[in-house]
């Protein structure tokens, strides 16, 4: 899916946990997520903390979108 979005001309960031698969699949901007069942959350945290964590990840994703890349890049 990520490649088709890219092919359509829209910059796309793939937020996912298993980044090697994302690399194989061919995503160009990759942001590692928290865990498979809750990529942008952590149920162990309090609601406020969890949202802050999610905000951080989304900021990282937006950061990736505003960064020029020369090929597949993982934004650690």
């Amino acid at each position, binding site marked *: 899916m*990520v*490649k088709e*979005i890219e092919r359509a001309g829209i910059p*796309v*960031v793939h*937020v996912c946990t298993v980044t090697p698969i994302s690399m*194989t699949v061919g995503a160009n901007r990759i942001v590692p997520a928290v865990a498979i*069942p*809750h990529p942008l959350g952590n149920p162990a945290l309090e609601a406020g903390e969890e949202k802050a964590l999610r905000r951080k990840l989304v900021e990282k994703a937006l950061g990736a979108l505003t960064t020029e890349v020369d090929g597949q890049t993982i934004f650690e």
Partner: protein
Amino acid sequence: MIKVVHYINQFFANIGGEEKADYPVELRKGEVVGPGMALMQAFGGEAEIIGTIVCGDSYFNENIEKTKNEILEMVKEMAPDVFIAGPAFNAGRYGVACGTLAAAVKEELEIPAVTGMYVENPGADMFKTKVYMISTKNSAAGMRDAVKKIAPLALKLAKGETIGASVQEGYMPNGVRVNFFEEKRGSKRAVEMLVKKLSGKPFETEFAMPDFDRVEPNPAVKDLANTKVALVTSGGIVPKGNPDHIESSSASHYGEYDIDGVFDLTSETYETAHGGYDPVYANDDSDRVLPVDVLRDMEKEGIIGKLHNKFYTTTGNGTAVASAKAFAAEFSQKLVEDGVGAVILTST
């Protein structure tokens, strides 16, 4: 003498066609039935069929687990040196039965097994990487050819001999690369391949490219504060109740949902249709997969121009690459038309 157990369906056992497809599983000890005769001939006295298992195709496929276990018991008891299923040619349910059984005998009983079928038989893609599968013609008219390949491969397997490359033995490529010496040197093969390619004739590559295609990254987003950002997920987030019935696995379609006025995904309003991971956390708070809440905040703060009022969703697990590609190609066009300038795709 090498001992062989053979599996065939009701049709090849001469019991009947579709009307007898519910014929239950049956063991014929000491009997050689139908295609078994041709196999025996091809063994040339090196092996014998010590029993034939017969089962109707519908019966097998409607009771897969149960029938498989019954048949495994039968095979285990007869303890053959090799198990042969089929060949199934282009009979779909027969192919699935042959593949299931040959793979199970090999994996669970650790007895070598071989089957055969037509390359487009659904059983082929399901099992060709799990067990040696001879590539046959699409109808029983190809029996002679099939037996000519199945019998020698079965003998080799029974004797524990080295198995050659797929082109030598006649099995379908199974993802394991095997070396062998060709009759012509590589350069000659290359020249012949090029001449065929230039004249538009069919040619066979010696190494099929994996699906590795790459897309050049698009330029970065310049002005985030004036960009419309869309959310897409393969995590299967859908409105509560899954109104479009997106499958939990091997999805056949994607969902497009309006989030105009939605500021937070709650357990009352959204859930996941994904069957590949523990759904508790996503069902509890779908923002953990699709971060609508945070993006709404950032929209309000002017960090992003706008959160697109639609999101696209499907389930990633078991979904064929080709389907996922088709879905994305379609909704990407909609995103373009709607003036979306950046996408966050989340996966579980």
